[in-house]
């Protein structure tokens, strides 16, 4: 009956209940949309880092290779026989591995015959390119990072192994405009020059096929995606800079990486595995998410503070108005904590109902915002992305639980504090 009584008490002062409910709803909608936005951005940046930037969920380097590869490439690259050893060790985890890949990176000059500009290239095996560009996670979360013809790159390599994909801005720097596939053949043909892993100069021919985006403003002027073999040829090596491991489920990523490193160490192998969310692997992902989490933390603090203050205000008024009633309950034998709990139940009801209403409202807002197709370029991101809001059911449940805990705790503390009055004083109160 106490829950029923608490529920009915909500209708005593409808205006105040509605005002407090509105504050809780506003807080709930704010939290759920903020959470939904961060959730969406996180998924997008994660898919971009893992699949489109070809880092995999796990990147495996030669020990210290991540830091020193550029200084002594022939030493820190992973040779084909070492790749076999790594693949052998990965068999232990094969149930959760979707596929593995190889990548080589390097810089050099791209020339149209008249003009040369620097590039920074990543050479990736065909399987990885094919799987990554068509991966459901990319299609669902990171399609903003894909150019219109990005997915055609794999087909282009299959018909022409010299095909490369460069950013639109790098294309402009060598006077080639997108779409590259529609350029005459002589305009599509470019030369790549670079220093090989032994320090000698080398050059190869390449064909512009498609454009892509690095997703990062800093890299967009020099980004190049090339077939693994083409870059190996340019850098005169049969090795890889790193190997990628793509997981089916990345829920236990840290543990898998730790286990893998433990295996390498145990077998005295000179390799080091990193998760994609290591700052050295995906500085963009880590930096952006760090900023978003800090911003979200600040807003969550503000929103929770406002909700808590509304509840405190509402409860204080409720207690003032019902002082004599509280006195009566005390007189007939209710313990102070029982009355506190009863009043807390009232707040919990209000919070629960407001949360239900808030879910509907948040969903409606997200539908409207998503239909409006607002686009913007976040700081440091090279592409314009759509501002999307999503109402995630798990997040909604978590936020409801958070608000119920916040409201419950606040209510209990406030009412316990107010229950310290003597029974006779409560009974003699004339009411607010």
């Amino acid at each position, binding site marked *: 009956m106490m829950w029923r*009584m608490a529920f009915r008490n909500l209708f005593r002062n409808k205006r105040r209940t509605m005002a407090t409910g509105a504050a809780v709803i506003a807080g709930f909608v704010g939290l759920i949309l903020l959470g939904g936005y961060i959730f969406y951005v996180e998924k997008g940046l994660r898919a971009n880092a893992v699949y489109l930037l070809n880092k995999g969920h796990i990147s495996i380097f030669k020990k210290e290779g991540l830091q020193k590869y550029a200084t002594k490439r022939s030493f820190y690259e992973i040779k084909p026989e070492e790749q076999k050893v790594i693949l052998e060790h990965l068999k232990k985890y094969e149930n959760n591995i979707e596929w593995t890949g190889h990548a080589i990176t390097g810089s050099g000059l791209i020339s149209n015959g008249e003009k040369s500009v620097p590039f920074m290239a990543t050479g990736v095996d065909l399987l990885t390119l094919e799987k990554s560009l068509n991966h459901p996670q990319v299609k669902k979360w990171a399609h903003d990072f894909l150019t219109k013809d990005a997915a055609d790159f794999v087909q282009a390599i299959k018909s022409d192994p010299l095909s490369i994909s460069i950013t639109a801005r790098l294309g402009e720097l060598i006077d080639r405009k997108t779409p590259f596939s529609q350029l005459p053949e002589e305009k599509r043909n470019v030369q790549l020059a670079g220093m090989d892993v032994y320090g000698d100069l080398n050059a190869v021919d390449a064909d512009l096929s498609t454009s892509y985006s690095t997703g990062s403003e800093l890299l967009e002027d020099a980004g190049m995606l090339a077939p693994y073999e083409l870059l190996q040829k340019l850098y005169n090596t049969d090795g890889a800079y790193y190997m990628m491991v793509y997981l089916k489920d990345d829920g236990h990523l840290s543990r898998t990486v730790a286990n893998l490193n433990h295996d390498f160490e145990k077998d005295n192998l000179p390799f080091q595995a990193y998760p994609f969310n290591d700052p050295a692997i995906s500085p963009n992902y880590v930096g952006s998410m760090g900023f978003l989490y800090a911003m979200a933390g600040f807003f969550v603090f503000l929103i929770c503070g406002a909700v808590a203050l509304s509840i405190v205000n509402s409860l204080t008024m409720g207690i003032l108005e019902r002082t004599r*009633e509280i006195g009566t309950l005390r*007189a*007939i*034998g*209710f*313990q102070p904590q*029982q009355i506190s709990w009863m009043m807390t139940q009232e707040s919990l009801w209000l919070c629960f109902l407001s949360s239900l209403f808030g879910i509907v409202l948040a969903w409606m807002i997200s539908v409207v915002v998503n239909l409006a197709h607002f686009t913007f370029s976040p700081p440091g991101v090279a592409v314009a992305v759509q501002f999307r809001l999503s109402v995630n059911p798990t997040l909604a449940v978590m936020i409801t639980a958070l608000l119920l805990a916040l409201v419950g705790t606040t209510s209990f503390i406030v009412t316990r504090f107010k229950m310290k009055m003597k029974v006779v004083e409560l*009974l003699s109160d004339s009411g607010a």
Partner: protein
Amino acid sequence: MEQLVKLTGVKKSYKLGQTLVPALRGINLEIHAGEFTSVIGASGSGKSTLLNLAGCLDLPTEGSIQIAGQEVTRMNESQQSDLRNEKIGFIFQSFNLIPVLNVWENVELPLLVKAKLSPDERKSRVESVIKAVGLESFQHHKPDQLSGGQRQRVAIARALVTNPSLVLADEPTANLDSKTAHMILDLMADLNKKQNVTFLFCSHDEKLIGRVGRIVRIQDGVIVE
């Protein structure tokens, strides 16, 4: 007769600003089981203070209070609450019903303090006291759908539902017209006679005192009769 309440040398003072105002100046009083006692006195004489102390709603500045053989002044807040719930029923001048609960629920309320009663026993007790006060056909009504007299009957039923040793009533008829006031007193007297419920109530209405078994007259914080 069994002694229910014993006040010995009870003094009570209230602080009003810097001044200490004495409300009771040394009260000795015993209430026995089955008594129908009225405390009468002028406004400000200390009768409500006396009832509050006898009802364990307040503690004396000095003196000893024993209720059902237990020394109240040595009890903590939780023990006092338990004592009130188990041994004492309260009837208030303004009825003090919970407006969001109907008659049945208001009467049932004191039984919810302790979880030891089964739902069947609760139901039987509530039914029985609602019948005793003649409100069977109003059990689903909310307080604002009842007359003053009916509300006070609900309050009486609520006071009786725990089978208390003592029922305290502070000016139970003050907010009622004279006819209803007499009906309420008749009901209390009837319950006292038939069910041996011990009543201690205070009133400043001299017209009602002829109906009670024992009168305690109080004046300026001292029992004078």
